Each structure stands twice: as structure tokens, then as C-alpha cells.
């Protein structure tokens, strides 16, 4: 059985899943901006540790539940190594001269650590957001918050159709294979040709689907009025209020650190 984790919403009864989607979206934005704005590896390390704690208390196991976690760690490690190897300025902490023309500086270690931890923080925050937030709930929350509903439903439609297109692309690809089409060992021009054969049925399918969807939406009065009512009621809970206060404190702290640095 395939056990490969997919990067998609997984419903769980945790405090993180229960937060209002806009609260989580605001946290994601603040963490991303502050991680890039504050040039302190200790700060980035604290953010990563905090996110790790959030994941664990929300019953998400980063090592197994997050998609491509090993790749994330390997990429962060590569960033770190590149900075350590190629930063020549700063206080030398390890010097292999004259045996080898290689030395490591404190600045290289600090920059490497900062970039690696920033990268991990942004990826971890994004994955936690995706895993704990139902995309349609987010779209409805954005519409309730003032996003014009036409744009909100563009998002909902994209989310809904993406897996269907993936399925359709797979079927067309299989149809090609069954007709003896080979992608391996073909010259570049031939690959472009078979890709065109793959894309044309998908394009026609997408246009047909768009046509049917337009009939369905207009037949149900979509776009008749400037505004609409909603069945879903957005609930702001106590946890959201606490979270917004924590977010405010975190944002103030981050700004102060960014200024002082």
C-alpha cells in the first residue's frame, strides 16, 4: 500500500485545525515576512522550534506527515554548507592552511545557519497551514472577509478541478502509451510532438468542462446580484482571540529585533 504523504488538508481534531483559517493565514504571512526580515539565526531557530512544537501539539508528526521533509532538510543542509564553504570574510574559527586552502569563518557559519533555518521555517509554516486548513473553508472565509465572491469561487473551482485534470492527464498519457508512444529515448522534437498530443485532449476537455460549469453556475443564479448570502457561518473562538494577541506580541517582538539588528 502506498504510504507516501500527500500535501493536502487532513481533518484532525486538534487546536490548530480548529483555528479560524484567516488566523492561520495571518500567522503564515507574519512568520514568512519576519523570518526574512530578522537577520538573526537564534531568532530563526526559535521560530523553527516553535513551529515544531505547534506541529507536535496539533498531532502532526513533521518527520512522517509532511511531504518531502527529507528533501527540505537536505536542501537546508546544502544552503548551510554552501555558505560555510564560500564565505571567506569574518573571524576564522577553523583554518586548514597551509595544508589546504580552506578556512571556516564565524560569519559563514552564522549566515549558513540563518539561511537554512529561514528556509525550514517558511516551508514548515506553509506545510502546517496546508495540512490543517480546509481549502474551501479558507475560500469561504476570504469571501466573508470581503473578497469578491467571483474571485473566491475561482479559487474553489481551481481546487476542485486540479485533481480531475491530474486524473485526465494520466488517462491521456496511458492512451499514448497504449498506442506505442515512447517518451524515453526519443529526440527532443519528437518529445515536443507527443507533449502536444498530450496537451490537446486536456485543453479540449478543459474547455468543455468550463462550458458545462458556466451553464451550471448561471443556471443557479451565480453573478445575478452583486452580493450573496452564505450558509457557512464563520466562528471566531476564544483560541482565535488568544492567537491574535500572541500574533501581535510576536509581530512587535519581530519588528523590534529587525530594527535593533
Amino acid at each position, binding site marked *: 500500500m502506498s504510504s507516501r504523504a500527500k500535501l493536502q488538508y487532513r481533518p484532525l481534531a486538534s487546536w490548530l485545525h480548529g483555528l479560524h483559517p484567516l488566523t492561520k493565514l495571518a500567522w503564515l504571512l507574519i512568520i514568512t515576512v519576519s523570518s526574512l526580515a530578522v537577520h538573526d539565526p537564534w531568532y530563526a531557530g526559535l521560530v523553527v522550534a516553535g513551529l515544531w512544537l505547534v506541529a507536535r501539539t496539533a498531532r502532526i508528526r513533521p518527520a512522517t506527515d509532511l511531504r518531502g521533509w527529507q528533501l527540505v532538510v537536505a536542501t537546508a543542509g546544502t544552503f548551510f554548507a554552501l555558505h560555510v564553504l564560500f564565505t571567506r570574510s569574518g573571524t576564522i574559527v577553523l583554518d586548514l592552511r597551509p595544508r589546504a586552502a580552506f578556512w571556516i569563518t564565524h560569519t559563514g557559519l552564522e549566515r549558513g545557519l540563518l539561511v537554512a533555518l529561514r528556509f525550514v521555517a517558511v516551508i514548515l509554516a506553509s506545510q502546517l497551514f496546508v495540512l490543517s486548513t480546509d481549502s474551501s473553508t479558507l475560500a469561504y472565509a476570504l469571501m466573508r472577509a470581503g473578497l469578491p465572491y467571483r474571485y473566491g469561487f475561482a479559487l474553489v473551482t481551481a*481546487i476542485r478541478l486540479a485533481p480531475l485534470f491530474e486524473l485526465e492527464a494520466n488517462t491521456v498519457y496511458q492512451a499514448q502509451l*497504449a498506442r506505442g508512444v515512447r517518451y524515453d529515448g526519443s529526440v527532443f522534437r519528437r518529445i515536443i510532438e507527443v507533449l502536444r498530443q498530450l496537451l490537446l485532449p486536456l485543453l479540449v476537455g478543459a474547455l468543455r468542462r468550463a462550458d458545462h460549469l458556466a451553464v451550471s453556475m448561471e443556471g443557479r443564479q451565480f453573478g*445575478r446580484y452583486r452580493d450573496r448570502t452564505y450558509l457557512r457561518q464563520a466562528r471566531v473562538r476564544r483560541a482565535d482571540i488568544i492567537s491574535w494577541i500572541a500574533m501581535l506580541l510576536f509581530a512587535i517582538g519581530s519588528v523590534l529585533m529587525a530594527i535593533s539588528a
Partner: protein
Amino acid sequence: MPALIEAKHLCYRYPSASDWALEGVGLAISPGEMVAVTGPSACGKSTLAMAIAGCLHEKPGGVWRGSVRADGIDITSRSLYENAELVGLVQQNPEDQFCTLTVEDEVAFGLENRRCPRDEMVRRIDWALDVVGAQHLLTRQLATLSGGEKQRIAIASILAARPRVLILDEPTSNLDPRATQAILVILERLRNDDGLTLIVIEHKLHALARFAPRIVRMAQGRISDQHAQTDMKTDKYIRAPAPPGDVVSRLENVSHWFGTRRALEDLSVSIHRGQVVAVMGDNGSGKSTLLRCLMGLIRPIEGRVIVLDRDQPVVSALAERAGIVFQNPDHQLLGDSVWDDAMMLARNTGQAEFVAPKAERQLRKSGLWHRRADSPWTLSYGQKRRLNLAAATSHDPDLVLADEILIGQDPANAQGLMEHLRALADRGSAVVVSLHNLATAEQYADRVLFLERGQLTLDASIDGLRPFLLSTGREAYLESAQ
């Protein structure tokens, strides 16, 4: 009683089309009446439905003549939004008409757009789901529903707005007999309890026999015949099974999963030359997965697949001796012209010279030879299907696989496709075809495999199918053969 819907001399031509899709259609439908519209593929049935629903007269570039009056008012004097208050249209494929991700949101969608107050919305959603027997699905994600459940939600989402006329475009074409029965029960309830006026586009007229609808037959954009329902039963014919030849394909203890969903479970089966094998079972029972395993398109997670003397084959190694036709004809139109498409497999496998005369014969026989230079995208639905079959079989393959190729086909097209497959088996190919219709299976197949939740529950000669269905309480399948 004055007509609720009345079309007079209705003509319609699609933008950039040269032929009229509707030509002088006249039709009057009374309140509470049920009308079944039938006819061959591309005869104008769906266009008529769209015209009555008010979806065509505002279409830029289309040519509209004649009139359609709904509740006494000319629909061209009203917008699509206004017409939709009276007439609701349920399209053929529910997947194509869903606008949201959950059952609750989908049924609420039209009400929210109408700015319906929340309390009223809750009441209407409750009522609509109750009518289609789907209240238990309220909190489900649409992607997790079966084909029958999706169709019920599609109907409920239109019903929630309480239209007076409901048009259903081939509501059962993608469904297995059991799901078809469930939809028919809903139609019965709508007609008897709610007095709804129903226009049902349907090939399977036998399925509607219990409602005694007025039958409207269409051909080439015109109404060719209208009459009260008469006997719509077809003759029963069970073929004498052909003896099995050599084994072409063998599955041994095959199991496969998609994520956590088990698609096939410990399945062992052999496919022989000279036979047509019908693969049957409810939607989602594993029929398509079985066919794709047989072609090497899916490598099962457990078990062994031996096809054409190759152990655990890959599709590229099988293509020159096997052919597969998928459910949706559009997914297999890969050539720039009809001829290019028909010859693609032969060219890719180095058999062009050998196959060309056979491909020509097949295109002539399928009535496509005069269209050989045209783009395959300009063909009608039935023509595309015939081209798919020609493209997959013109190299005389040893193994032919056809996955639900009768969906959306009118009886004449379906008969042509099945006769083609039968002829291939009679010439020595092994043919495996997944289908839902018992009568078709009995008429053309030698053997049947019945799947239930990925398990093989019957592997028998075709004459064993009917007793099996009876003994396992699958009366819905028997009704599909009436």
C-alpha cells in the same frame, strides 16, 4: 390544460457551425407531464434541453429562430437567470456541474446566489436532500461520493431552488443498474408527490417504462415521432458460449490499492483467445483497474500479471499485440487527422505498411473513410467512439480491452461497437469489455467476470450470469435487460 413549455418552429445553429442543431422543432408539454426525449447521438436532444432551459438564445454567434414559451412567456424576452427560476437543468455528468467541494455547499450554492436567508436555506437543503434520499451525505466531500450519489446531489442542488420544470440529460448513463434504480425511484417521487414536470433525455427507454412517459424521438435536429409509451421491451437473446482458446493473459493473486482504497483483492483469472469476456459490477468495483492491469498500464502492488507470454509486462512491450479503448473518446484522439489517428499505433510500432490496408477497411466499415482528412475533433460523439475502436484494433491485436465504451451511445452505435468486438473474438482475439447492461452481455459475451469491491465474485460462462444475479439479489441488473 395550457402547455407549461411550448416550442414552435424552433431552429438553432451553434456559433461557427454549418448545420442546424435544431430544425423546426415543435413540442408542447403540460404541467406535471413526463416526457422522454430519445434518439441517436448528436440528434439534438441536449441542444433542445439547453434551448428550453434558456441557455442558448443569449449565446453570442448562435442563430435562433422560432419560439419557446415557458409558462406563457417567450423565453427570449427573459435572461437566463429569470428562465432558470422556472426550469432547472441537470447535466449528463454531475462532475461537470459541481461548483463547490462539499454536499452542503453544493446544494446551498444556488440559494446563496439568490440571497436566500440562512434559515430558509437550511429548510430547503433539508427538503431537497430528503427528496433524493441523501440526507446522510450532508457533510461529505463531493470527491468521496460514488457515481450514483453524485447524481443525487446534482439533482438536489437544482431541486433546492424549486423549479417547476426539471430537465435531466441522460441522468443514468454513467451509472450501474443499482444506482440507476435509485435515480428512477427519485424521479417517481418527484412526479407523484411533487407534481414536477419532467423532461428526461434517455437512451435506456426500458428504464422509464414504469412511468409511461410520452416518448419524443429525435433525428437530425427534428422530432421524428411522438407517442404515448408503448411496449419498450427488447427481445432476450443469450448466445451459446464459444469454446476458450489459448490463454492470452493471466492474473495470479493480484491486489492493488489507490492510497488506502483497495481496488483489486487477490484476483486470479485467465483470458482466452476466441472469447468475449464481459466484466460487470457496480461503479467503483474495480473493473477499470482490472482492464488497466491486463494492459500493463497499472502494475499491481501484489501478485503476478502474465500477458502475451510476458511476465509483469510494461505497456510499451504490449502495444503492438494489444489494444485498449477507454471510457471517454476525447482522451484518445491523438492524431492530427482521422487517418493519422487510426494509423498512429501502427506507425509507432513499425507496422504501418502491414496495417494501412486494414485501417482503410475499418474506416470504410465505420463510415469514416470520407472523413479521413478531417480533424478527429470535428467528429460526432458516436464517430469518435468508432474511430477509437478502429485505432486500437486495426493491427489485429491478440488482446483487446474496452472500458465502458457503451456509455452515452445510442442503441445503433452500441450494437455496431459490440458487433465489431464480437468479430475480433471470432477471428481469434481475446476481448475483454466492461459494461453494465445484462442484455448486451448475454448477446455478445461468452463469459462473465463479476466484481464486487475489488473481489471476483463470479467467473462463469455467460449463461451463469442470470442465475447469479437472481441468487445474489441484484434484480436491478435483471431490469436493465428488460
